[in-house]
């Protein structure tokens, strides 16, 4: 009844090609963004910011990056954690070594160096495909783990690779309190999500999708596989690198290489697959799911235990968390292999006809 495009006539090409073609969508997204910028800061407390919103925003950004590579270009990558690490440590180095380096530039330089590393480790994708490539990208992961632990130059000579930053400012405004951090991350996320969305709608995005669907056929019709694959690696690792820098600078403040271990790579891939391959929106759903689920389980399991009258030890809780997490993931994959984004679009399709389906 309310969600219809009836009567919304497109009279220009620009109107026909906009991201949200239906006015209701447009208003809903604008309202959501406005709520995120104004409503959430008024409602949420410090714990929510620190435990849920900031990790969610940063990991959603990283998931957008992973989705470009895995979902749009079809190159399965297990090296995302490494690209995050490169972003974080490169940003750290530029931030600390260059006097008076603005935070934003440092973050972007993190993205830049992650791009270089991403392109380098993307080269095997020209020869190797599918699962072989997935394992090959693990090389990036283990190499970076090792490099940041053992090569002192990257970490300013700190043993065990742990580094920290402080006194963050953007245009003279401090980024210290959880609220400021939240707004900073939100602004960056909105910006990058918009860029990514436009990129995948453009010619280069269509090239990526052609490569994903069938690379030989794409090459036959004149798409350069090397250019398309490497550009996907570059864009994706740039975004992941910026997210990694944010994760280190804004969320953690002080970190060591273990923060970007292979588990992080798996986690990001989980987000993308549970959220929906080839969907920017799906990255947000996936990130929300993966960030919120462990917290909910952590709170819920002891409560359930005390309800039944069983005192559960912390070790048992963490094991049960593992089990429930694993089982839920398998269940989700079985119920909706195309991810939460698919559910979302089915819901929208239904809503268009509701409540008069005929």
């Amino acid at each position: 009844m309310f969600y219809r495009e009836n009567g919304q006539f497109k009279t220009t090409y620009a109107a026909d090609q906009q991201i949200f073609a239906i006015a209701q969508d447009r208003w809903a997204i604008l309202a959501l963004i406005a709520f995120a910028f104004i409503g959430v800061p008024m409602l949420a407390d410090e714990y929510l910011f620190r435990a849920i919103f900031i990790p969610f925003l940063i990991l959603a950004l990283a998931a957008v990056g992973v989705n470009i590579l895995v979902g749009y270009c079809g190159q399965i990558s297990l090296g995302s954690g490494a690209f995050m690490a490169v972003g974080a440590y490169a940003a750290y180095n530029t931030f600390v070594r260059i006097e008076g380096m603005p935070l934003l530039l440092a973050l972007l330089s993190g993205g830049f160096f992650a791009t270089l590393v991403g392109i380098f480790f993307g080269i095997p994708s020209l020869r190797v495909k599918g699962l072989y490539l997935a394992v090959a990208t693990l090389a990036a992961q283990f190499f970076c783990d090792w490099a940041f632990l053992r090569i002192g130059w990257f970490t300013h000579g700190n043993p065990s690779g742990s580094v920290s930053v402080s006194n963050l400012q953007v245009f003279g405004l401090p980024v210290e309190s959880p609220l400021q951090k939240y707004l900073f991350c939100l602004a960056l996320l909105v910006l990058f999500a918009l860029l990514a969305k436009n990129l995948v709608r453009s010619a280069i995005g269509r090239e990526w999708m052609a490569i994903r669907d069938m690379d030989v056929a794409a090459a036959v019709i004149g798409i350069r596989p090397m250019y398309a694959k490497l550009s996907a690696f570059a864009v994706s690792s740039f975004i992941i690198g910026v997210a990694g820098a944010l994760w280190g600078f804004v969320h953690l403040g002080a970190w060591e290489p273990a923060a970007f271990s292979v588990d992080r790579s798996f986690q990001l891939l989980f987000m993308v697959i549970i959220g929906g391959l080839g969907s920017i929106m799906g990255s947000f759903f996936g990130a929300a799911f993966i960030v919120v689920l462990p917290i909910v389980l952590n709170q819920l399991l002891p409560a359930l235990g005390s309800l039944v009258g069983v005192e559960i030890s912390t070790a048992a809780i963490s094991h049960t968390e593992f089990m429930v997490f694993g089982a839920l993931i398998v269940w989700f994959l079985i119920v909706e292999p195309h991810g939460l984004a698919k559910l979302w679009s089915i819901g929208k399709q239904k809503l268009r006809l509701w409540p008069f389906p005929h």
Partner: protein
Amino acid sequence: MAFFLETLLNGLMAGMLYSLVALGFVLIFKASGVFNFAQGAMVLFAALAMARFAEWIPQWTGIESRWLANTVAFVLAGAVMFVVAWLVERLVLRHLVNQEAATLLMATLGITYFMEGLGQTLFGSDIYKIDIGMPKEPIFAFESVFEGGILINQEDLIAAAIAAVLVAGLSVFFQKTATGRALRAVADDHQAAQSIGIPLNRIWVIVWCVAGVVALVAGMIWGSKLGVQFSLATVALRALPVIILGGLTSVPGAIIGGLIIGVGEKLSEVYLGPFVGGGIEIWFAYMLALVFLLFRPQGLFGEKIIDRV
């Protein structure tokens, strides 16, 4: 020279152990096209089961002989792995037929989390010992050829022998039995196999079972070497370069890949490691596999990938 040979031999022994884990991957991938990330968790699970049963059985039944207790524990752990295989097929694989490779990969990652949690809930999360009476003392060989001889771990030697016996047994099973023939048919072509009446679901249970037993043997050997603990699950990550080097679909590839990776790791650690600060074992294996992949994208013995438009 003696030192080089010693390193080489150590590498071969380590490689044999990698092959054991890799074998489980290859078996499942061949039969069902599933890249089974849970193999590492299965190794941990099986080893935990074995270690704990071996500890509990003397308490429950009063069996004194360690040999008997270990055998019973092995059989029981094997039964547990059978139940795991059956449940995985019943609850997960059956519902995910024909999904994309990435989705299946993620599903096995989910299974990994589940089994890690379940294993530690059921069997505890401390470090346990598997004592199957492997001799620990090293022996010296070729003392007549080199001065001082070459130091060989007897334990490694026995482990390698067990691995060799397992591989031989598996190849007999695959070549000579009706079930083995059915397995090979499924590996070749799912649809063709199904059309001549081979029940795919049962084949999957069997192959996960075989992979479970392989995981049990691997877990037993690794466990008696290093102790059974959580880090055993990461052994899967060490075995990944082995399978892409050897080819995802090739059993001999898993063995030879394992040997190459084992030797490469040990030699690089000893001869290259000191120059760059050590600890390069784990990524060197991946780099080695990558270099091979650049020349043969399907691995050394994998089936040639043919693209048709």
